[in-house]
């Protein structure tokens, strides 16, 4: 067949596209379970990290099964609702109205008592940021935090996922003495905020820092009723 004819060119292109699509689709299908598993393990590692338990990709599942004793969904009135907490997509929930939102809670038994892990999700400078914040059973004091991001600037905004930034959250309080929800301020040098509700922002990462502050304020608001209800 003439290699320069239109028919040959069209046929060649069509067959090539079908073959390549079939190969890519089947590889994607074949590898999907392994990839999904990796994402799940990473999520478990992050949840464990928020209650200050170190784990590796190999040990995460066993430790998670041992430490995380309960997981459930709550609505913004603080009532438990049906559903799978682990697979709940926070991004979708955030898009709903405040009344319709359901939020996951993970209950962890640690050496220092029962901790409640609250996932948070918000916007940084370049893309989404998210994380897990654990509170002690007074439903007020933060026990640990773990943050991650999609594409914040390396060396600047991306520093939110470093331990140096995350450890600052330990011991901070979500409610003030009057019981009002004040969340945690991510403060620049010179900014005045009560010590119990303040962590240092990242130099050069102002928009990411502000995004993180807003994420905590917005998302704790969703959990406010749940926290108040379960206060000891």
């Amino acid at each position, binding site marked *: 067949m003439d*290699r320069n004819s239109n028919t040959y060119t069209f046929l060649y292109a069509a067959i090539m596209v079908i073959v390549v699509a079939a190969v890519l689709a089947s590889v994607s299908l074949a590898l999907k379970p392994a990839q999904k598993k990796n994402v799940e393990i990473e999520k478990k590692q992050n949840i464990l990290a928020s209650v200050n338990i170190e784990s590796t990709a190999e040990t995460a599942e066993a430790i998670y099964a041992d430490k995380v004793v309960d997981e459930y969904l709550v609505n913004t009135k603080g009532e438990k609702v049906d559903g799978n907490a682990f697979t709940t997509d926070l991004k979708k929930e955030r898009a709903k109205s405040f009344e319709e939102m359901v939020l996951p809670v993970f209950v962890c038994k640690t050496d220092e008592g029962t901790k409640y892990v609250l996932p948070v999700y918000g916007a940084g400078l370049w893309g989404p940021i998210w994380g897990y914040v654990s509170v002690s059973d007074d439903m007020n004091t933060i026990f640990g935090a773990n943050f991650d991001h999609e594409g914040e600037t390396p060396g600047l905004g991306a520093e939110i996922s470093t331990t140096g930034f995350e450890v600052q959250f330990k011991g901070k309080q979500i409610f003030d003495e009057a019981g009002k929800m004040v969340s945690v301020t991510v403060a620049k040098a010179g900014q005045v905020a009560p010590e119990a509700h303040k962590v240092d922002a990242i130099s050069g990462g102002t928009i990411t820092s502000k995004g993180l502050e807003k994420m905590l304020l917005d998302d704790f608001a969703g959990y406010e009723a749940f926290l108040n209800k379960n206060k000891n």
Partner: protein
Amino acid sequence: MSEPLFSKKNLKLLSDPLNDSNPITVQVLGICSALAVTAQLKPAIVMTISVMAVLALANVIVSMLRNTIPNRIRIIVQLVVIAALVILVDQVLRAYVYDVSKQLSVFVGLIITNCILMGRLEAFALGNRPWQSFLDGIGNAAGYGFILIVVGFFREILGSGSLLGYKIIPDSWYIVNGGFYENNGLMVLSPMALIVVGVIIWVQRSRNTKLIED
């Protein structure tokens, strides 16, 4: 094939790109990625390995298809082959070495835009047999990767005082700790990669007079 697999001519395909026809310093191809991934040594090494895998395979595939590819859409065919291979590499990394893939996903995607790949497919694989094309792919990726690694080495050690993330320059040497040393901030910025590549070209041409034009 009457010719031995590693005949002198075939070995030249491997060794030439390391010096006389180096893709970066002589053909000046693939400069864009040489700037982007060489601020540290580790991404430079992983980029080298990924480019080697993709270029060698793409060369072989295009070489096997070379007598069937319609001339008018040959560039599109080459691009489809490259893009499909890069997606495969990305998917495999994501399934089996998740933490590496998280650090590198952007760089892996960048391979598609690397001009060396198109350059070698168009200039070599379309006119040569698969085995020769395979050697040419390995050779060119090695020549490219060699420069990447040299540039990454100097940029990381002079710009961050470390290699592969390990500290090389002791903390006590730094001025902030009462020492005498300071990292060169320019080294971590892309323009410095061009300057380092320029120096490499200078050294290479002063040693290899064949390359000097009148």
